[in-house]
């Protein structure tokens, strides 16, 4: 196939990507350099003024901090649990095939269902979680209403919902590792932990990188669960960048400021992605 033909065949997809991705990114960047309010009609060039304002905005700084904490902890937990479950399920034991669909089940629910369900379960008075705590002799906890517990609670909920996806990726990776390598290690007398450290982990490196990349990007965009469960409270403890952008752009209609915040968020996600892609996947 000539290079020309290949180019023309990929051109429609390329144009579509440019129209749906590159153009909006430039659009957002353009708006971020303007004071643009849809209600007042103000639209004036302001350079990096909106960025400066954001960096001085307490709520934005809190939302960036919360988003980073959430993203790092949720990604770490989900990767760790997904890997652990995949390693266990990869062993041969009776009923393994029955367990697989159960593990994947949480990811089949919509976010609204998951949030409503967990809101009921974490209710301080009538929730199942506190009921169990009481039965075990512990004090009930204000899961979603305490400044210190609200964000960890959302991390737990997100981990419950998204660990299955991490598990599936790792499980597929484990299935692709040749059995002979493990058999050779067994003959050489390698203990299980060494086998895991020296064989499983290196062989799953690209899978781990993929999971970290996908979950970092997704957790960084946290919006729906926070919107449904806490509205960003209590006392801004669960305010995230996405929620901040939503309110600024679609409630206050400050398109310039919302665009600047979106661009900062995009910058952070791209930076994280580049690190993963360069350090792990491309090697």
């Amino acid at each position, binding site marked *: 196939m000539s290079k020309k033909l290949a180019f023309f065949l990929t051109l429609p997809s390329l144009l579509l990507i440019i129209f749906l991705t590159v153009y909006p990114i430039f659009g957002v960047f353009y708006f971020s350099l303007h004071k643009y309010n*849809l*209600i*007042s*009609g*103000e639209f004036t060039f302001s350079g990096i003024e909106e960025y400066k*304002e954001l960096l001085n905005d307490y*709520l934005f700084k809190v939302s960036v901090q919360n988003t980073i904490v959430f993203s790092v902890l949720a990604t770490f937990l989900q990767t760790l649990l997904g890997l652990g479950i995949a390693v266990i399920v990869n062993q041969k034991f009776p009923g393994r095939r029955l367990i697989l669909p159960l593990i994947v089940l949480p990811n089949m629910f919509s976010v609204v269902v998951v949030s409503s369900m967990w809101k009921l379960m974490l*209710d*301080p*008075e009538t929730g199942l979680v506190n009921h169990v705590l009481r039965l075990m002799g512990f004090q009930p906890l*204000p899961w*979603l*209403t305490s*400044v210190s517990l*609200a964000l960890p609670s959302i991390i737990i909920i997100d981990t419950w919902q998204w660990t299955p996806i991490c598990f599936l990726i790792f499980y597929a990776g484990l299935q692709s590792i040749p059995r002979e390598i493990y058999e050779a290690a067994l003959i050489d007398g390698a203990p299980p932990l060494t086998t895991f450290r020296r064989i499983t982990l290196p062989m799953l490196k690209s899978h781990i990188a993929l999971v970290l990349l996908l979950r970092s990007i997704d957790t960084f965009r946290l919006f729906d669960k926070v919107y449904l469960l*806490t*509205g*960003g*409270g*209590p*006392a*801004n*403890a669960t305010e995230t960048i996405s929620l901040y952008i939503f*309110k600024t752009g*679609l*409630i*206050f*209609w400050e398109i310039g400021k919302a665009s600047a915040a979106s661009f900062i968020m995009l910058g952070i996600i791209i930076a994280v992605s580049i690190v993963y892609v360069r350090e792990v996947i491309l090697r």
Partner: protein
Amino acid sequence: MKIAGVGVGAFLLGLGGGYYAGLASAPKPPAAPKQYTITAIGRDAEHNDINSGVIDFFTRENPNYKVEYTPLAYNALYDKIVLTLQQGATAVDLVYMDDPWIPQFGEKGWLTDLEALSKEAGITLDLGDFPKVLIDVGRHPYRTGKLVAFPQMGNVQIFAYRKDVFDKLGLGEPKTWTDVLSACEKIKASGLVEYPIAFRGVKGNPVATAFQPLLYAFGGKILSDDLKSCALDSKAVEALEFLLQLKKYAPPGVENFNTPDVRDRLVGGKIAMSTETWPGWIKDADNPAVSKVPGLLAYTLTPGERERPSPLLGVWYWGIPAASQNKEAALNYILYSASARMQKLMAIVKGLPPVRASVGADKEVVGLRRWVAIQVQSLASAVPRPRTPLWSKVEDIFGGYVNQVLAGTLKPADAVAKACEDINKALAGG
């Protein structure tokens, strides 16, 4: 069952009843066979139920009219209206608006002057049956400007309390917030109800809305009269300290409570009072199929303190986009929907909080929906949200700080100082 029976009767009455009353010289829709299609965007949930009911009556009685109604959730509706009006789209003929949105849309000239349109159409508007504040709010600028929005659903805060519990403890109807606090102490001591009181505490609009009647009763206000600066002062600090007193009697986690958390506890018999109650929350409170307190709730005006009771207005309005191509037909629908006959029918059948004083005084309506009398009375003394296009931002800031006080991360005085700083910045365009 009783309501359902009357509902069916009212429906038949409506079908045979001919033309609507209440707007003295409103002409009947054009008799010519010309077909009209009105496109409307409005709210979902109970609003959809009510508006669909009106549309059903309207199109049956006016077969040459077709009304296409798209129900949307609160935020989605707001976004859709802003984008539609901002683009000058001609596809929408009717928009259903929460009252704080009117200054934003009015300021941009996005809405049709309904009085001028009526005049053109040869209709004399009789606004005498509506509480004055509803018409004032429908004007832009507030009170003095053109009528750009017509009241449809008379949402307003009222105060609901457990009459049986109050009677057992020998407590009278709470007239002030001090009465409420004192009742809380006695109810807690009695153990008659799980918790004496609850309120919406989640950050942003919910807690800001729940707290405002208390703030106003203590003599405080959020914005200065010219709407150009923050007016929160020591009275706001006092009101916040009072809110913290009430919090002691509320269920744990109240700082994260939203509408369902308060409404379900009130109708589920788990609390004796709520600092605010909206008609939609208790419209079926006397129905034993959905309520654990049928006949046990009593309703009164939101308490006062140093100032008179100041319930917050949350009325929904119809407006006609300036770019609509179907203005006269849309106006006919609005007047039909707000007519005394339709307001009465919808109040009985669907639990609509009416916007007309005459409906609030109607014995049939009040007999079936006990809260309507207080609701219409509350409309007359209601306080609208400050009429600035920047209200949504101011409210978000204010609600954020009130939530921080409830969560215990800020002291009332610090919250007021910081809120004022941020509100002033927002008003200055920052």
